[in-house]
């Protein structure tokens, strides 16, 4: 008998608990949010805060121990040390170059997949754009290492033209990063072009506009927010990268490399350098937000 009482009592408890939860949405909300918010705020935001606070500390130059004395020396060094300034400008330049290249390459591809290709083929083409995103980041960079290495595919293709590949260095870094983030630019442009109402294009043509004029006055303004949305990915992913440049960049240094090389000996300096990409990305996001692109992400 007792064995039958227990599940019934158990069911009663469950029912009561369910009733309580149903009557008290705030309790439900608290139960839902406690664990994830503890994880994200204490663990993640906590670590981030400590890191950014430590950017205002210094290190003992003999022992490399962190000295918890408030100073803005590290940030001062960011602007006055020529190497830092140069590397920061180079990193922003690389991120902008990658973004522009991605947009220029993505447009014809997206225009083809969204409006020129037969409707039957379009879903398949979207999958074809998406598939490389699932291939390992490292493998894709490795592929470019193979292509650009001495006597590799790039040299082989350019040889009949009397040229040789760019080898490892800054151009190789820009090229590889462009390759890595290209799908993030193609997809939003494809979506925007696909949703472009056909009657707007017809109206433009009826009013006498040729293809070029329609493109400039109708297509481009409507697709620009999506380009901006895609650029958030291409720009910020390029700015924080330091692995690609290690593999195909030769001796090129970007902000990420500076952060990495300072971690062991001067963590506060590394933290200060780490704030640079974060700040630049935040500024970029604020600038992009004015175009209304963030809502279409």
């Amino acid at each position, binding site marked *: 008998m007792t064995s039958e009482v227990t599940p019934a009592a158990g069911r009663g408890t*469950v029912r009561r608990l*369910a*009733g309580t939860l149903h009557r008290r949405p705030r309790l*439900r909300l608290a139960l*839902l949010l406690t*664990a*994830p*918010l503890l*994880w*994200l*705020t204490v*663990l*993640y*935001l906590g*670590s*981030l805060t*400590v*890191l950014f606070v430590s950017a205002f500390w210094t290190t003992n130059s003999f022992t490399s121990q962190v000295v918890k004395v408030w100073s803005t020396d590290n940030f001062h060094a960011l602007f006055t040390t020529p190497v830092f300034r140069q590397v920061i400008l180079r990193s922003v330049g690389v991120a902008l170059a990658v973004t522009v290249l991605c947009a220029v390459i993505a447009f*014809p*591809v997206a*225009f*083809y997949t969204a409006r*020129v290709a037969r409707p039957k083929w379009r879903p398949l083409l979207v*999958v074809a754009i*998406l598939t*490389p*995103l*699932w291939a*390992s980041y*490292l*493998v894709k960079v*490795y*592929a470019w*290492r*193979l*292509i650009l290495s*001495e*006597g*590799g*595919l790039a*040299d*082989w293709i350019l040889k009949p033209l009397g040229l040789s590949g760019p080898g490892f260095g800054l151009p190789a870094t820009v090229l590889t990063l462009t*390759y890595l983030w290209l*799908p993030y630019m193609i*997809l939003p442009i494809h979506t925007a072009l696909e949703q472009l109402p056909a009657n707007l*294009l017809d109206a433009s*043509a009826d009013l006498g506009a040729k*293809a070029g004029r329609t493109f400039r006055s109708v297509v481009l303004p409507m697709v620009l927010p999506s380009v901006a949305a895609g650029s958030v990915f291409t720009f*910020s992913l390029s700015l*924080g990268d330091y*692995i690609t440049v290690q*593999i195909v960049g030769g001796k090129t240094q970007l902000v*990420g490399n500076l*952060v*990495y090389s300072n*971690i062991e000996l001067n*963590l506060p300096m*590394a933290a200060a350098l*780490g704030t640079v*990409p974060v700040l630049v990305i935040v500024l970029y996001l604020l600038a992009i937000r004015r175009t209304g692109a963030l809502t279409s992400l």
Partner: protein
Amino acid sequence: MHLSRTARIALRAGAALGFAVIYVPLLLVLVNSLNPDRSASWPPPGFTLRWWSVALDNTGAREALWVSVKAGLGATAIALVLGTLIAFAVTRHRFFGRDTVSFIVVLPIALPGIVTGIALNSAFGTVLAPLGVGLGLFTVIVGHATFCIVVVFNNVVARLRRTASSYEEAAMDLGATTFRAFADVTFPLVRSALLAGALLAFALSFDEIVVTTFTAGPGIETLPIWIFDNMTRPQQAPVVNVVAAVLVLLSVVPIYVAQRLSSDTATSSRV
């Protein structure tokens, strides 16, 4: 828009070139795994399957793969629970700071990996070291879970926004308890979104290198770390080639699964 014949041909050519640029590097990785030579010079002098059998016996790569799978499963499990909880809180409740919560979820993937990496590294160092706990697989899982939450969150939120809460209310009007309504009504509705989120989270963790670098203890080597360490060693080149080729082939699996799950999950981006 009526494109001229030349414009159409130009666009076709441009798109063909674009797709060639996207796929040639991946094909090259596949072909190069059959290259008998250690150098990457093109064209390869011949083809051999020898390195594939050598790679299969490579304990370093096999152990790294196993570590990656364990880290990915652990991170995915945590991300599934936490991401789903926040998704329900954000879509089914209105509360002060709701937008901030959505923002915090995205932050770990929006900030450069190196920033997240060193932040977690120094936090683990200060908090765990005095407790006698060092970096290990556990810390890798914690680090990965932090940025995997967002992909589960995004998938579940997208699904919940499209399913009205009236289904659950109907179930409860018919006498189901909160739990019963969840198990019989809500869960089946979000199941495929959970699967898609889990798939994305695992892929993201499996591919991660930067955060891993800073959260892995000594002796913990995931597959990306193994590839990175061995990439520049000419001696290991043939094995790296094979591992890279395997990863390219494996990338078809999630695409296939995502297609099977539903059309909307396949087009949702990885971020």
